């Protein structure tokens, strides 16, 4: 077997998973145990109800308000679109399920590979549209830093190399597969230390925000 392929699916994948698990737990535990600012306003709800209300608010406010939908709808659609497409490709492609099964021991039915290929192409198109939007709008351009572009690059590289591997484009399959797994390894290593960590932060932070607002009466 190709030495690079052997390395990226052997020792390097092992290191990448170890770094990923270390980094994610470090940041999750570290942030969770930070001292939170004490709320001085009188509590409107009990803790349980505040969590329920907060979760509800976190859900409803993850969608653009109708007053802003004309202004933000395109960006939101792009964001949700590529996230959804990416999740379908990651979780419902047969080889990915096999990989996850080898890690966690669970498996589920796959979608046909040809359908996954179409969704992967759509994912790539949406990723490119997201980048174009980010660069073309002055505000998002000024808000962006290395972290945003590097995270985008790693995700896109993984999608591109995956598509190339399934289509056998440009190089022998074993090389393409090695590049794909190499990009996954790089993604796993970078994941906890960059903005990709939002995958773990986003829902707890929204629920905590919702909970805090609910306790203050702002969730009504």
């Amino acid at each position, binding site marked *: 077997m190709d030495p690079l392929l052997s390395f990226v699916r052997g020792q390097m994948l092992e290191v990448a998973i170890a770094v990923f*698990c270390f980094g994610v737990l*470090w940041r999750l535990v570290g942030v969770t*145990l930070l001292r939170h600012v004490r709320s001085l306003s009188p509590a409107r709800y009990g803790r349980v109800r505040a969590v329920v209300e907060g979760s509800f608010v976190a859900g409803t406010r993850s969608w653009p308000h109708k007053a802003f939908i004309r202004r933000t709808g395109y960006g939101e659609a792009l964001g949700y679109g590529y996230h959804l497409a990416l999740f379908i490709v990651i979780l419902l492609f047969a080889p990915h399920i*096999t990989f996850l099964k080898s890690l966690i021991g669970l498996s589920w039915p796959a979608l046909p590979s040809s359908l996954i290929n179409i969704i992967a192409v759509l994912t790539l198109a949406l990723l490119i549209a997201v980048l174009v939007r980010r660069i073309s709008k002055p505000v998002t351009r000024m808000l962006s830093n290395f972290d945003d572009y590097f995270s985008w690059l790693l995700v896109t590289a993984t999608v591109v190399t995956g598509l190339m591997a399934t289509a056998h484009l440009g190089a022998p*399959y074993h090389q393409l597969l090695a590049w794909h797994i190499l990009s996954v390894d790089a993604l796993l290593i970078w994941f906890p230390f960059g903005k990709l960590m939002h995958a773990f932060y986003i829902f707890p932070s929204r629920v905590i925000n919702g909970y805090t607002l609910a306790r203050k009466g702002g969730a009504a």
Partner: protein
Amino acid sequence: MADSDSTQTVGEALRAQGISRRDFLKFCTVTASLMAMPPLAGRAMAKQLASMKRSSVIYVSFQECTGCLESLTRSFSPTVENLIFNVISLDYDDTLMAAAGEAAENAREAAMQKNWGKYVLIVDGAVPTGDGGVYHTAAGKSAEQILAHVAKGAAAVVSIGTCASFGGLPIAAPNPTGAVPVSDLVTDKPVVNISGCPPIPAVVTGTLVHYYTQGRLPDLDSYGRPLAFYGNNIHDRCYRRPFYDKGQFAKTFDDEGARNGWCLWELGCKGPVTYNACATLKWNQGTSFPIQSGHPCLGCAEPGFWDGGSFYAPLATGKWGRAGETRPRDMAFVAGAPAGIGAVVGVGAAGWARMRRKHLEDKPREEED
């Protein structure tokens, strides 16, 4: 074994063996088409091959199991391939020849002297170089010495099988005999690798016929294998490929998927990363090949296939654990230990942040005091 003193042409020798002109033309046409030669090349090849004097081939064996030679010369039904191989003038093969000991060594020396600079050397097996070469000796000489000696007068060297081409089983970790492939030792002659465990007979004879009729070795891939036979991976030519594309996989060797002939990828098939002609040429005169018989490809034509993890682990899985196959319990260590350390570091980082914050909050008060 061929008689090296014979003045017969290859055509005459084949006719004497009962091979008809039709069979011979068929062989040449198929060989030419397999090697992506122009349509009329088969006829030209037949003409040239039939009229050429038999050329000398010397076959030496080192660390190998004789499976390659067995594959090539299987005798239950003599084929044009193995007759061509023999008739081309196999002057020395220590496994096949009747002579032994000094007589065999003398026969090899005689063939070498007579055909110096013109014979083709076929090597079967890896070459052990560890501990002074004690793991393979013949007539008091190590395999490395024999190879250096025989290769000196060869026009070209053909490494037959994965052991000779890439080290095969002998080079597998921890490689106790210090085995190396032929191409590591023979660097001043053209070397062609015909990998496979064993290689397909038609690929061996096709390469030899190409050399004798074209006067040069065929175009090679990055691993030194004839591109015409190793240019495509098995997955691309596999008749089960449509099932891969549809996401239909056999999960075990006796489930519904296996009975329906679905793709064997989840059973560890290495077809996607293995370059060989198994799916097109097949074995036993085009009867079948491993995948057609219901077994995943092991990837035997690729370098390091013994060290590539479990034969039955799908390519999409990681490659670690005792059997080179990722399993959930291996993950407990690979992921669990770093996660635990990460959690401890997280607690420490949060504690440090709290102390720092408290320090910053207390500082103005101290200054006010």
